[in-house]
């Protein structure tokens, strides 16, 4: 049945990698990911985990070694953050094209120079076009469960794509909460050993996937199709995982406290937990605002979102990122949502909020402010600001 322990997000990710029996872990330390790889190193030193830990000299090498190991048939886990993720970007394009199901934790941290060591989502969102599946997790429990699910999704032969499990530095990575650790035997039954049916680098069994110059578009379309298929697989995996381990995450999008509600806002990552508390408080006060959690950003849940959009008159999108000079000055998630909903005849009103930039805390008051703005828009039928930089508003608290 497993045990419950106080685990930090990074420890939970390490437990996920251990339970998934990752065989090769090439990694390079970077705050706030460091505790994750040092936990794995101690698992290996204690003999609890049987894996090759490659102490590489940089993230660029970490991802290349991950590619080599995955191509040679090993289950691979790695992790990075911020500058490290961007340093490995050159290599990040390879696994989707080679269809290698590497799992990587992207421990979100703001990019230099206008940010500290704490999180916003620009580092992982910069990788949105590479072909990696991207999950955004809320807390330790979800991180642990998602790492295991990530292998199940990525190694599915309909998918064969790498998966990024993203979570906020500090607010998720260093936050300890009681976390249920599944039983190894149950995970083994759920996640059989990795065997790639398309790619094999072993002498005598060699098989490769290559895009030849005359059909590059076709090769790219194959990746696009696999990404689309991943949506169904993610739903399936969420269900099958829940049946065994008792925890469900509603696939790509979760609606929280949305019964009979027509105005919602959408969050990603650790701020979702804070938003749940705010929603409970304001609904008790009679304010009818609900919450949508975006758990999976790639593949983008277009159909699911369209289905939800029919129910809601107003959707506020909370972006913990910036895209300087973007359309309407929007955040990245808002732009994607707008594109997904554009083809609907009856479109909800969209609001966009920038919050938690450069690693600043997303507070209860800020979320309350967002909820109030969403409610205003619902009542008046129009948005006061197309894009609202919440942190520039004086909400009476500083830390």
């Amino acid at each position, binding site marked *: 049945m497993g045990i419950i322990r106080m685990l930090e997000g990074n420890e939970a990710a390490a437990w996920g990698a251990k339970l998934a029996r990752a065989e090769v872990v090439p990694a390079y330390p970077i705050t706030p990911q460091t505790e994750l790889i040092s936990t794995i190193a101690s698992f290996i030193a204690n003999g609890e985990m049987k894996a090759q830990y490659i102490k590489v000299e940089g993230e660029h090498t970490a991802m290349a070694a991950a590619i080599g190991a995955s191509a040679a048939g090993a289950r691979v886990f790695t992790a990075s953050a911020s500058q490290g993720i961007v340093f490995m970007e050159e290599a990040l394009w390879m696994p989707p094209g080679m269809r290698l199901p590497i799992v990587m934790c992207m421990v979100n941290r703001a990019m230099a120079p206008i940010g500290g060591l704490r999180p916003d989502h620009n580092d992982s969102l910069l990788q949105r076009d590479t072909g990696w599946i991207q999950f955004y997790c809320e807390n330790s429990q979800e991180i642990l469960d998602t790492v295991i699910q990530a292998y199940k999704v990525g190694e599915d032969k309909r998918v064969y794509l790498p998966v990024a499990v993203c979570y906020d530095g500090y*607010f998720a990575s260093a*936050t*300890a*909460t*009681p976390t249920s650790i599944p039983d190894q035997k149950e995970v083994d039954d759920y996640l059989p050993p990795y065997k790639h049916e398309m790619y094999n680098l072993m002498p005598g069994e060699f098989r490769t996937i290559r895009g030849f110059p005359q059909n590059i578009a076709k090769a790219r379309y194959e990746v696009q199709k696999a990404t689309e298929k991943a949506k169904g697989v993610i739903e399936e995996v969420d269900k099958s995982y829940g049946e065994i381990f008792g925890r469900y995450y509603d696939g790509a999008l979760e609606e929280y406290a949305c019964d009979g509600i027509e105005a919602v806002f959408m969050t990603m990552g*650790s*701020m979702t*937990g*804070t938003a749940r508390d705010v929603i409970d408080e304001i609904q008790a006060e009679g304010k009818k605002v609900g919450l949508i959690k975006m758990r999976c950003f790639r593949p983008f849940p277009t159909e699911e979102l369209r289905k939800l959009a029919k129910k809601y008159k107003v959707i506020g999108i909370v972006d913990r990122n910036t895209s300087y000079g973007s359309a309407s000055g929007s955040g990245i998630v808002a732009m994607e949502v707008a594109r997904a909903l554009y083809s609907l005849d009856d479109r909800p009103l969209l609001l966009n909020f920038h919050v938690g930039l450069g690693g600043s805390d997303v507070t*209860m008051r800020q979320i309350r402010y967002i909820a109030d703005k969403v409610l205003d828009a619902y009542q008046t039928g129009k948005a006061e600001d197309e894009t609202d930089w919440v942190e520039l508003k004086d909400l009476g608290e500083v830390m």
Partner: protein
Amino acid sequence: MIEIRFHGMGGQGAVMGALALAEAAFSEGKYAQKIPVYGGMRRGGDVTVFLRLDDKPIRRTSGIYEPDALVVLDPTLLNVAEVRKGLKQRGTAILNVNNNPEEVDLGVPLSKIATVDATGISAEVFGPRAIPITNTIMLGAVSRATGWVKLESLRGPILHMFPGRMGEVNFEACTRGYNEVRVWECSK
């Protein structure tokens, strides 16, 4: 929900201390959450840790701006404005200072002030250090002053965190904090 804010200097063990307190509460069947806020892993500099205890799962991950209790691991930190900030009226302060609690003024009417000379105890237990280790001593003080966790519940997490002889030494420090803390029920 009880919200506690720890302040320490880097190297004093604020993060481990808060985690031990969370583990202790968890072992008593409560839900607990610890969020540290610090820079890199270097020593020195200030460290803030947010700790929440509740009877139901804790979901919010934001910082604590109006703590029910303030735990300060070093007397010098009381001079830092941010440390005193947001303390609730009728809240609790557990401080590493060598004064009587009656002499302490944090500028807010509190319900309880507890003081303990953790720096002095630390020197006796661990020997003198540039950055005195005060975390486990303060945990004992928190246990006695608030009753939110039992002293005995702290033993397991402390022994787990400090393997070998240092485990017992740290629990001894914790026990001294428990015994030597001076608690003033100022609202009475």
